[in-house]
């Protein structure tokens, strides 16, 4: 059968429609899901594949760590259950960190899409589950066995019949069974919705097979990426940074080789993996590599197989960016997110117009205890440091990077937790000075008003190594976490007695370019609005004028 080809107008219509289908799959998932991770942070991904397993469209909302993991996950699933053995109504799942997205918390749910008795597509949905048993979501586990239940590639449904034993197994092993199984089933439901929409789409446009369409989508996306890569001068670009681990610092190193229209990233020189749950399986490392290249080259090209093809990577086996089982991986994002600033730093000289200075990044504090009214509470407080500046653009205040979250409204937080927020304000002078200034961080003071002892688990970095400025821009301020005025470790677990106060100083983003080149009216405006102090104006910007 010869493959259909489409003119650029029809192709645009069909392509946008496929993305819209992926977006609708995400919508139905988000609305029926119970977990905050899915609702507020879009810690999820929905992907449509053709019958050959090439990804065609991904929901527009998801987090960077899902850039391109799904095609590999599908290959692993099809290796276990070959396509010609799949039946209509089969649902295949796994949460294996090395086959999925790098930690047990993410469940990957896949359904083949049948049309006239044959597979024409696959739909996959991935979400961060509320719980998966084991030690719970933290960075403290020593091996993956302590982290919870690992589900090998298995069939949750066979021809529409649910495997009750598998559901029971999950239910028995997790803390919040209703929510966890509810979220699992929301994934199943949205892949069913996706299958139905793909069938309607094919009927409407009289398409028998998606292969012709995917040839064109993948080829155009790949070509667009290759064209942009060609604009980067050939060469090997190196960078190394230190990041905070749990016991001691870790060294991350990369060499980015740009050759013609390809990019290869090698992580030789990176520290060995560690006995705490911050190791980054290679699938996650790859996702962050692809994401970092994508934002620098083709931010407007929708995600699909084509955006992965020109990029390859290697990391020595056993390094923290390529650990093998049974190393623990629960908090892999804590280290994995640094792949973006690591690579940006390497490419700063080669792509000065595109590179972003370092960002302050996220802070999240998992709080557990009892409210004043005696209700149990377990909630995560999200807040963010400043966004790094770009050539031509100041960084935004309190904006997450590279991952995405939504900050918690004060009125909602106080209502839910019994913790009282005394202050949430911008930190003047925290943004790295520069011709383009880094975004400001913030100061948050939070008091335990619940009348009970609470626990707070912090998962953050940037307390030793500040967000770096580039091309002459200055560094942003460091993160500081304090309990009753005493500085504490940002990856620890603490008891908050009634009346205890935690203070968070969220880092500012790095600046870009020589601060003395900053237009004087911008310095003056920053001064007038209190984003910088008169001392900083004089010291960094050489500005002696009045406010």
């Amino acid at each position, binding site marked *: 059968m010869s493959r259909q080809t489409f003119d650029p107008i029809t192709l645009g219509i069909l392509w946008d429609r496929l993305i819209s289908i992926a977006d609708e799959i995400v919508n139905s998932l988000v609305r029926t899901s119970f977990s905050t991770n899915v609702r507020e942070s879009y810690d999820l991904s929905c992907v449509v594949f053709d019958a050959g397993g090439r990804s065609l469209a991904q929901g527009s909302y998801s987090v960077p760590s899902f850039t391109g993991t799904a095609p590999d996950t599908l290959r692993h699933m099809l290796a276990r259950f070959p396509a010609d053995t799949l039946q209509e109504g089969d649902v295949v799942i796994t949460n294996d960190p090395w086959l999925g997205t790098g930690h047990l918390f993410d469940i990957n749910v896949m359904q083949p899409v049948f049309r006239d008795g044959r597979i024409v597509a696959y739909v996959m949905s991935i979400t961060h589950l509320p719980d998966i048993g084991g030690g719970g979501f933290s960075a403290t586990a020593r091996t993956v066995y302590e982290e919870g239940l690992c589900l090998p590639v298995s069939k949750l449904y066979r021809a529409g019949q649910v495997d009750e034993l598998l559901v029971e197994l999950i239910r028995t092993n997790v803390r919040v069974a209703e929510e966890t199984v509810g979220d699992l089933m929301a994934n199943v439901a949205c892949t069913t919705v996706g299958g139905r929409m793909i069938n309607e789409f094919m009927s409407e446009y009289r398409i028998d097979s998606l292969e012709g369409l995917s040839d064109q989508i993948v080829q155009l996306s790949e070509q667009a990426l290759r064209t942009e890569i060609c604009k980067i001068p050939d060469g090997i670009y190196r960078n190394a940074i230190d990041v905070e681990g749990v016991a001691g610092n870790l060294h991350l190193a990369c060499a980015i080789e740009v050759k013609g229209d390809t990019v290869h990233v090698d992580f030789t020189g990176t520290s060995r993996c560690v006995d705490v749950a911050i190791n980054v399986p290679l699938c996650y490392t790859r996702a962050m590599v692809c994401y970092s290249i*994508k934002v620098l080259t083709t931010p407007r090209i929708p995600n699909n197989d084509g955006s992965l093809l020109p990029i390859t990577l290697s990391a020595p086996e056993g390094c923290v960016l390529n650990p093998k089982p049974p190393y623990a991986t629960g908090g892999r994002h804590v280290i994995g997110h640094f792949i973006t600033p690591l690579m940006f730093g390497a490419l700063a000289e080669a792509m000065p117009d595109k590179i972003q200075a370092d960002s302050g990044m996220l802070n999240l504090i998992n709080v557990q205890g009892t409210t004043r009214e005696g209700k149990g509470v377990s909630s995560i407080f999200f807040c963010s440091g400043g966004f790094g500046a770009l050539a031509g653009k100041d960084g*935004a205040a309190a904006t997450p990077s590279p991952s995405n979250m939504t900050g918690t409204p004060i009125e909602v937080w106080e209502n839910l937790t019994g913790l009282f927020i005394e202050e949430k304000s911008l930190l003047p002078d925290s943004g790295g000075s520069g011709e383009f200034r880094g975004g400001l961080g913030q100061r948050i003071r939070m008091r335990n008003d619940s009348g009970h002892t609470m626990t707070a688990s912090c998962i953050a970095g940037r307390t030793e190594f500040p967000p770096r400025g580039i091309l002459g821009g200055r560094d942003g301020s460091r993160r500081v976490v304090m309990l009753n005025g005493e500085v504490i470790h940002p990856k620890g677990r603490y008891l908050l007695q009634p009346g205890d106060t935690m203070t968070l100083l969220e880092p500012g983003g790095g600046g870009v370019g020589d601060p003395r080149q900053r237009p004087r009216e911008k310095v003056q405006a920053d001064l007038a609005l209190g984003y910088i102090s008169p001392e900083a104006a004089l010291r960094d910007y050489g500005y002696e004028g009045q406010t």
Partner: protein
Amino acid sequence: MDYRAGIDIGGTFTDFALFNDATGEVWTHKQLTTPHDPSIAVIEGAARLLQDAGVPIADVATIAHGTTLVTNAVIERKGASVAMVVTRGFADVLDIAYERRYDLFDLRLGFPTPVVPRNLRFEVDERRAYDGAVLRPLANLAALQDRLATAIAQQKVEAVAICLLHSYVNAGHEEEIARWLRETFPGLHVSTSASVFPFMREYERWTTTCLNAYVQPVVDRYLSLIESGLERLGFHGKFFIMSSSGSTLAPALARRFPVRMLESGPAAGALMSARHGRTLGEMQVLSFDMGGTTAKGCIIKGGAPLKTYQIEVAHVHEFKKGSGFPVKIPVIDMIEIGSGGGSLAEIDARGVLRVGPRSAGANPGPVCYGLGGERPTLTDANLILGYLGASSFLGGRMRLNFDGAAAAMGRHVGQATGMDALHAAWGVYDMVCEDVARAFRVHASERGVDYRNCSMIAFGGSGPVLGSRVAHKLKIPRVICPWGAGVMSAFGLLSSPQGFELVRSDRTSLASLAEDTFCEALRKLAAEASAYLEASGAKPGELTHRFALDMRYEGQGYEVEVRLPPGTHLGAAYRSLPESFAAAYQEVFGLSFTGRPVEIVNWKVEAEGPVPGRRAAYHLKHSSRAAAGASKGARAAYFPELGIVQACPVYDRYALVAGDTVDGPALVEENESTCVLLPGDRAVIDRQLNLVIELGAPS
């Protein structure tokens, strides 16, 4: 006093309608908007309309007015200088915003600059807990006095937004500050966040309040101009302003809550669709309004537009959701689609065609306007396809440049796609129809509405050109192009009742909620909403109340709105709440859970006066067929169903009379638009001169 008038200001024209309740007669008028001072056209046009109709202004009982004044002030940042009084420690909430990126890949994403600059945000000592208890008494207001006086003198501050944490639970401190401000600085406009809209979530509530303050002086001046102008004409009736939610506000309420007028303009169009829907017996309608830069759509269900309580305005980054201000107001639930007649066609980074959201605007406009536009737009495509006539555009007042449009289309779209100008134009047109259809599909499915049971009402300059094609894509059976859609939105104003909506955030578990508490809370809310309307002259006996609750399963983040059926006994409504919630949840999500605890998050009431002129019958003056009949000959037009460009009959909309039928393919021309009938479509002219198109079977 049998007459009522509607006046609707649009970007280009200000439209007028005069209606006689006793006889059903309607007169209409339109004239150019006067952007520098819109009140000029309003007063002039009102005088002209009455003169033409021979009606003394003393006989006009009410005038209802819709205006884009507030939207424009916010988008163009032409509001007043505003200061903010805020709980100590939280002045930066406006900058910190959501702490979220709305685009994960575009590092150059932008966020709107708050309307209150950081150095005009004054912190006060006070604090309430989440339950309203005072943790720190309000103190030291006098310390503000000098700083505010300086701000008023130097930064020309005209309005103050008072924004305190948890004020939606207890507004005591906000009110105390407001009293003090009014006494100390009598000329200032004052908005308190608890009165503007008492929702939980400080960033949205405060942003809404600051915008309210930002437009308050502008609206106050504008309304004074209109009121004095009408008074000079001798008007002694009642004057109302259209709000975003489709009900009207007396001037005193509009001055207090001008932010509620943000969508005043589009609301008039939606109301017109609703009115036509009722007249035509269409209970489910897709209202589709496409103008020069954007298209607006909404769903009319049971004769009324769907409502919501949040919109986003003044996007700073390519119409992207997340790049504007979130505003909490009662508003008709509209989709905004970033494509209109002026939308530019271009080949995007992928190498495929994209139309909009970039727009040629009014200046330079489409290539065919000959005003210097060089890049092809949807309007250029419509001309190339033959849907618009080069010599009949705007009733022949503006000649369009066909050759220029075709050359630009060939150069910018054709060359990259290997097509001639005609097929490139078809691509542009079809792409926009797809975008509109997709937007409706998503909007409807998110609201649990089966759009295939709807009819579409298409209006605006480009709406009737695309309506039938979009309807074909959505597989809906009928498209209605109302007569003289432009002026009919002024007519829509006349069917809008006076109304006011109130909301309270009070998270309450259903399990611990007693029937008495429930009924009492709603009665209290209803009485409060009524008091607003009674203060502006509504009669207590005439007011009706509709209740709605935002509910969710405990632990979920999304609320589903549960509307209590009008007129239900509150006790009965209380007892059936679990079932009502399950049904509403099922409608949106396709499933519901049994045995999960449920909670109420927001309590809402809509108080409404009687709908004026309920009678459906109206008839237009001055509509009679010219002796020559309605045919204007034929024009070459392209329909892919027919394969080639061929002669297509053209009709004069103004010469068609009730009972006439038109078979597609056909082009029915009116001054501001053309209704395009596809092959197989058949249109009938109804008694109100609406063009009712029954769609042909898909080819």
